[in-house]
């Protein structure tokens, strides 16, 4: 392939691609995101290829593998063009029927459609499914439409046009002005105004500068960066090239955790293709601007998502943060001015350049513009990847998009922003999601994790879980984070074991506040959020653990006991057979549990068909 040297050549290539591609031709798009792969979408793709070949349809049907569509709960998902029919939970055995009915006759296979559990209505199109309907997809818009390993697919939907526009028609100052005017803020969670960061880096002294894309998403339950890197790697590259051009950098780094093999593979393929087409390399679009990107794999330390630790890691040092009193934009990687942004922020840049700052700023709240991406997980019906405009209330996300709480249970709390985010209670469900409002509520945007918890969740246990994660992931450099988190965990573990003392809550509060004040980096500064927010909103649960030695949610094993209700027990023996401790006695008609033998595993409760076993 000849290198593309001008905007006209790119347009010509795109036009010829569009002419070659018949939009009316039947096509199958199979999601090959990590979630759908785990549910067997590779087999589905293979079945389609086999089936179409065996029926001799190879020429007239296009098969495409795409990245994550977002609706991971219902994977593997496929979309059949040109009518955009949306099938969910597709198995390889469904494939022959889909080929013969939908692809050949244009008929819809009813049982594969999505049924809205609330209304019982079937929907045949992706955008009619409630999960997608309330979303505003910008960064993720093309995730399910293009083959991430094919640059031509990206070019066909208008890819690299923003780059052509930026390099051939805009000055560096104009680009930075546009980004600044759009109100784009750091989508990795920090929320720092991107345009201002770029400007500082542009103005920083020094002729060697770097840009870095942060794809080291490490929060439990967050996968938005991964999905984007897997599904649309070129959008990240395009953003980075534009940014590098505006800032004056000639080398970029993408820092991606090694646990994301598919993202790494797709990014590498994308980089190779971009080099081949001349979007990376020397003299990009004939402008004399040289830029290249290399991938650095992270070893999986959570702290390496923090910018200064990430920079240290790229430099080949131990991934430990340093104080950022001199900003990275002035002295970052190898002491050179360095501009680091999250991959979602980079992917937003081409959209802003292409559509203008006003378009981007049209949605969102006063101080947070554009969209926010969340990985919606936990006790909701529709888990998956969600992109909404800033300012969307939590309620909309959990009930309209998420489809409400699993098994009709009661909502208790939602944690946003990963392990260092806070837990937001039910009374605050109307809270609009944006950077500042979440921070005010004692939580944060973070990497966009959103974990929904139901009434069966013990908030003290939740705090314990996240502290355990954080104490393991703390780098150990500064005292408050290393020693403080350990002590908070110690106190909370005691509380969940029924050994909490009244004064523990005060000490916990004092520790949390000091760690927040005294820690070195973002990890320590935000680590106490879970403790502080649960202490604030769910203090009664802590008090129940400490004073009454009871766990209201029935989670903390040392504080609960299992009972069999005499009037409901039929003496069927289902629990008796499964109890690993032989703790259930069957004298008389009904059963009883021997608390001295019981290990509170809950197997009996799950096994009981009459709901006769309860926790107190």
């Amino acid at each position: 392939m000849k290198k593309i040297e001008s905007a006209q050549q790119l347009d010509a290539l795109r036009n010829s691609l569009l002419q070659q591609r018949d939009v009316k031709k039947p096509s199958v798009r199979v999601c090959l995101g990590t979630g759908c792969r785990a549910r067997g979408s590779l087999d589905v793709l293979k079945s389609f290829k086999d089936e179409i070949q065996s029926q001799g349809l190879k020429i007239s049907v296009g098969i495409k593998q795409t990245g994550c569509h977002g609706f991971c709960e219902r994977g593997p998902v496929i979309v059949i063009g040109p009518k955009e029919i949306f099938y969910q939970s597709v198995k390889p055995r469904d494939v022959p029927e889909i080929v013969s009915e939908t692809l050949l006759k244009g008929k819809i296979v009813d049982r594969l459609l999505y049924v809205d559990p609330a209304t019982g209505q079937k929907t045949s199109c992706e955008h009619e499914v409630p999960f997608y309907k309330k979303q505003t997809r910008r960064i993720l818009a093309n995730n399910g439409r293009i083959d991430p390993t094919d640059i031509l697919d990206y070019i066909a939907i208008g890819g690299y046009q923003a780059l052509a526009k930026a390099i051939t028609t805009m000055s560096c100052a104009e680009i930075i002005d546009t980004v600044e005017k759009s109100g784009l803020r750091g989508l990795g969670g920090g929320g720092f105004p991107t345009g201002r960061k770029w400007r500082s880096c542009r103005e920083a002294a020094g002729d060697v500068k770097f840009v870095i894309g942060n794809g080291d998403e490490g929060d439990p339950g967050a996968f938005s960066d991964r999905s984007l890197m897997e599904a649309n790697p070129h959008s990240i590259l395009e953003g980075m090239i534009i940014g590098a051009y505006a800032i004056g950098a000639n080398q970029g780094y993408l820092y991606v955790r090694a646990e994301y093999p598919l993202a790494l593979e797709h990014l590498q393929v994308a980089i190779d293709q971009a080099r081949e087409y001349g979007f990376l390399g020397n003299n990009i679009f004939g402008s004399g601007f040289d830029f290249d990107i290399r991938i650095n794999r992270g070893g999986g330390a959570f702290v390496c998502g923090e910018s200064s630790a990430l920079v240290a890691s790229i430099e080949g040092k131990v991934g430990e943060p340093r104080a950022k009193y001199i900003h990275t934009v002035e002295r970052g990687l190898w002491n050179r001015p360095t501009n680091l942004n999250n991959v979602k922020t980079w992917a937003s840049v081409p959209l802003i350049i292409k559509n203008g700052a006003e378009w981007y700023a049209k949605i969102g709240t006063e101080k947070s513009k554009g969209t926010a991406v969340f990985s919606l997980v936990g006790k909701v019906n529709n888990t998956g990847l969600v992109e909404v405009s800033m300012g969307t209330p939590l309620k909309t996300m959990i009930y309209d998009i998420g489809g409400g709480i699993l098994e009709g249970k009661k909502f208790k709390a939602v944690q946003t922003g990963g392990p260092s985010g806070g837990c937001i209670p039910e009374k605050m469900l109307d809270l609009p999601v944006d950077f500042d409002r979440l921070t005010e509520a004692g939580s944060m945007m973070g990497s966009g994790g959103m974990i929904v918890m139901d009434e069966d969740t013990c908030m003290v246990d939740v705090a314990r879980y996240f502290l355990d994660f954080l104490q393991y992931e703390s780098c150990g450099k500064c005292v408050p984070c290393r020693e403080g988190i350990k002590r908070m965990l110690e106190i909370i573990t005691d509380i969940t074991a029924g050994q909490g003392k009244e004064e523990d809550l005060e000490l916990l509060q004092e520790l949390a506040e000091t760690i927040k004040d005294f820690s070195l980096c973002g990890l320590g500064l935000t680590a106490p959020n879970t403790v502080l927010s649960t202490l604030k909103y769910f203090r009664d649960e802590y008090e129940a653990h400490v004073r009454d030695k009871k766990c209201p949610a029935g989670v903390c094993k040392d504080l609960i006991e299992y009972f069999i209700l005499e009037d409901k027990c039929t003496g069927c023996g289902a629990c008796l057979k499964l109890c690993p401790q032989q703790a259930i006695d069957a004298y008389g008609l009904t059963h009883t549990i021997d608390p001295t033998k019981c290990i509170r595993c809950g197997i009996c409760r799950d096994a009981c068909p009459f709901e006769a076993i309860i926790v107190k």
Partner: protein
Amino acid sequence: MVTLTINGTKVQAEEGSTILEAAKFYGFDIPTLCYHDDLTPYGACRLCMVEVDDGKRTRMVASCLYPVKEGIEVGTHTERVIKGRKLVLELLLARCPNSKTLQDLASKMGLEKVRFKMENETCILCGLCVRMCAEQMGSGAIGFVGRGQKREVVTPFRTASEICRNCGACMYICPVVELQCRGVKSPGELCNSCLVFTPQCLEKFGRVMCTLESCGACVEKEEK
């Protein structure tokens, strides 16, 4: 030169120097554990934290790293600072209850009790030895391994280092290598005997003549 305010006093400091250097020069006493004049500041012990008001907002910064800036107001002993410092020291003491350096600091700051479960470590992970070995001795025979709770200072692969010259600089600079304090009686209690100790020199020479490193005992006693 940069003009800033420390504890309400206008002072001048050289551009590029840190708050700690300026404060030390003017005699404001900021406690430190991981700082040494001749080594790269590290910012890990968090005892030297001070409150800085730059006109826009107040924030807590490590004075050993924060460069002096025109017009900032620094508080080295505000309520927020003292409260946090005490807790950080308490955390360290819970880890290494028998360190005399830490016990002395506790006496000086008026910390009398540790509320956490006591451990019995010796190293406070300040990293002075690691920096000393690398920066001053040009060796780099020791370093940190492990993360979080598993962090420790060792030679590579825990074997006898080929580049270590046994110079002893690491031991020389270590703030906790010394005769251990024998004062601790029951878990959680600090003896604070240094706090009530009356130096002999006071009677002979008075405070002005004190040539020992200021233990602060005399001042504390006078205040009481």
